[in-house]
C-alpha cells in the first residue's frame, strides 16, 4: 500500500491525468447538457495530453535546444510535446464540429438538454 501510494505521489502527473480523465468521464455521463458533455470530452482529452507530455518530461532536464547553456544536462524528449500539438489541433477541430452540431440541434429542438431532446424525439416517433 505504501509503495503504491509512493508511486502515485512520485508520478503525480499521471495521477492527475487519471483524475482528470475520471472527472471528464463523470461529466460526460452525468450531465445532460450537451455543452457540458463536450467540455467533459475536452477534459478527458486534456488528461491524455497531460499524460503524454509528462512522459516526455525528465525532472531536471532542459529543453532540447541547440547551443543551450545547459547542454551538459539531459534533454526533455520533445517528441510527445510535438505530437500533442497535433493532438490539440485535432481536439479543437472536434470541438468546433461538435459545437456546430449543438447549434443545429438547438435550432431544431430549442434546447441543448439531452434529456429533453430525447423526450421530444420519442414523442415524435410515437406519433
Amino acid at each position, binding site marked *: 500500500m505504501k509503495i503504491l501510494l509512493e508511486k502515485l505521489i512520485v508520478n503525480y502527473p499521471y495521477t492527475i491525468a487519471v483524475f482528470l480523465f475520471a472527472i471528464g*468521464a463523470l461529466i*460526460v*455521463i*452525468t450531465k*445532460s447538457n450537451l455543452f457540458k*458533455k463536450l467540455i467533459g470530452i475536452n477534459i478527458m482529452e486534456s488528461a491524455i495530453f497531460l499524460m503524454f507530455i509528462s512522459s516526455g518530461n525528465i525532472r531536471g532536464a532542459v529543453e532540447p535546444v541547440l547551443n543551450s547553456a545547459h547542454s551538459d544536462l539531459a534533454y526533455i524528449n520533445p517528441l510527445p510535446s510535438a505530437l500533442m500539438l497535433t493532438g490539440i489541433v485535432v481536439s479543437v477541430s472536434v470541438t468546433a464540429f461538435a459545437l456546430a452540431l449543438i447549434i443545429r440541434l438547438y435550432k431544431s429542438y430549442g434546447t441543448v438538454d*439531452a*434529456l429533453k*431532446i*430525447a*423526450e421530444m424525439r*420519442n414523442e415524435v416517433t410515437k406519433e
Partner: protein
Amino acid sequence: MLLVILMAIPLLGTVALLLMRDRFAKIPFVITLTVFVLGLFGLKDVFGGIPLTYNIAMPGPFVLNFQADSLSAIFVILSTFLWLVVSIYSPKYMEHEGRGWSFQLCTMLTLFSVLGIFLAGNMITMLLFFELMTITSYFWVIHRWNKEAIRAGYFYLFFSIVGGLVVTLGIVMMGSATDVLPTIGSGMVTPLNPTLFGWSIATLIVGFGIKAGMVPLHLWLPHAHSVAPTPGSALLSGLIIKIGAYGLIRAGEFTGWGIKLGDSMTWLASTLLILGTLTMLLGVLNALIQSNAKKLLAYHSVSQMGYIILGLGVGLYLGADGGLGLSGAIYHIINHALFKVALFLGVGVIYIHTGETNLYKLGGLWRRFPVTAILMLVAVFGITGTPGLNGYASKTILHHGVSLATETGAPWLIWVERLFMVVGVGTAASFAKLYYLMFFGKPTELKINDEGSPKLQIAMGLIAVVMIGIGTRPEFLLNSAIAPAVEALGIENISTTLAHLSFWNFHDLSGMIITLTLGILVCWGGLKSGIFHWHLPTYMTIEGIVKLIVRGIAAIIQIGLKGYVYVVESIHHIGEAMSSRLCSDLRKFDKSKSSTVFGINLIGITADVAILILSLGVIIVLYTLMNPSLL
C-alpha cells in the same frame, strides 16, 4: 406350360366377363369346368412323383416360378372342383342376392389367384398371389355393401394384410437363414442359422395362421365368412382358409418336419399342437351358442381348421413318424372343404327361399325341401364324422396320429386327445342343433317363396356323391393322392404306416358312435335348458380380451403421444416465450434510453458512454480472471 394355361383360363374368363357384361351367366361354368377337367387330367401324372415346373424368366431379382407336386395337385383339383360346384350354384343364387356380375368377376379373379398360390414355385410368387387373393376375395366379403359387410370387410382386409406382412417377414428371415430362398416343393432345407430358421418358421406360422383362422388370430373370420354371399362364404370357408393350412404345410416341409429346427426351437411343435387344440375347442364352443346358421358354420370352420392345425402339429411334433398327423390334416382339408361347401350351399338354399339365416326363426322345413334336407344330412354326417362318410376317415387318421403322439410324447398330450373327443361331441351337438332347428322342430312362420332351381340341388348333390364316395372307400384317396403327397413332403415311411391302418375297426367305430350319441344328448339338453343362448361376458371371450389389449396398447400410445406432444409443445412455448421476451427486451434497450442507475439519469449518449466504460471494465476483469498471475 400347363400350369400357366391353367391359370390363364380364369383370366380369360375375367376378360370374357368384362366383354360380355349382359350375358355372363354361362361363362363361369364353362371356365371352371375347363379348368377342372384340365387340372384333373393334366395333374394326374404328378402323383407319380415327378413334379411339373415352369419358370417365367424375368431378369431381375424376382422370377415367377411355378411348380406342381402332388400336394399342389390335390389343392388345385380340390379348388377347381369346388369352383365348379359353386359356378353351377351361384348364378341362380346371385339372382336372388343381386350384383351377380361383379360377384362372378371376383370369383374368376380369386380362382386365378388361388391357383397361383397352389402352383407357386417359390415363396414370393406365392406371396404375390396370396395378396392378390386377399384383395379379390375382399370384394366377396363386402358384396352386400351394407354396414355390417363393410365392417367385416375392413377386418378381413386388415388381418389379411397383416398376415401378408408377417409372411413377408417370415420369408425374409428364412431367406437370410438359408442363404438362398428355398423353392417350394424342394423338400427340407439345410439352414445356415438354425435359430433364425426356427424363428422364420414361427413367423410364417403366425402369418399363415391369420389366414387359417388360428386362435387367437381368428377374430376376423366368422364375421367375414358370414356376411359374404353364400357361394362366397362357401368358398371362403371351404377353400380360402385352407390356403393358410397350405402355407403351414409348406413351412413344415422346409423344416423336414421339425428335423431342421434348431434345438432351441422344439417348443414350436408343441405350441402348434396346443394352438390347434385351442382353435378346435374355441371354435366349437362358439359355434354351439350361435343362432345364425352362417355364423355357426363359420365358427365350425375355425374349429375344423383346428383339426388340421392339430394334425400338422402332430406332424411337426413327431417328425419322421408324424405322417399320420400330416396325412390326416391333408385328408381333413379335402373333406372339410367338401362338406363345408355343401353345408353353406344348403343354408344358402334355405336362405333363397326364406330370406333368413337365423336358426330360431326357421323350422320344419324338411317337408318343403326334402332333397335339400337329405343332402344337408349327408353333409352334417360328414362333418360330425359319422362312419361311412368322409369326415370319419380323416378324423380317424387324425385321432390315430394324436394317439401316437400321446403314446410317445409328453404326458400332457393326453389332454389333447381328451379335448379331441370333447370337440367331436361339440361338433355333433351343434350340427344336431342346426339340423334340428332348421328342418324339424316348430314349423317356421316365414313366408316361403318358390324361387328354387334344380341347379342348386345338383351342385350340392355333386359334392354329396363325392363325399359318399370317399366315405365308403377312404383308402382310395388316401393311397392314390395323399400318400404320394405326404411322401413328397418328406415323410418316406407313410405308405407302410398307412398300410397298417384300417378304418373299420371296432375301437374307432365305437368311439365315433359314442361321440355322436353324446353329441345328440348334449344338443337335446342344450336346447331344453336354453344353454345355447348363454353368452360369455365380453371380457372373457377372446374378442373381448384382444379388444382390451388393443385398447390398452392404444391408450399407452395415446399417453405416449400426448406426452411427446406436450414436451415438444412446451419446449416450443418456452422457446417462443423466451424469444419474444428477449425481443421485447432488446427492443426496449434499443429504443428508450432513459433509465436511472445509481441516481444518474442514463439518456442517449450518456448511456452509451456508460456502456463504453463498463465494457472496458469488463474487459479488464476478464483479463485479470484469465491472468491471475499479473495481479
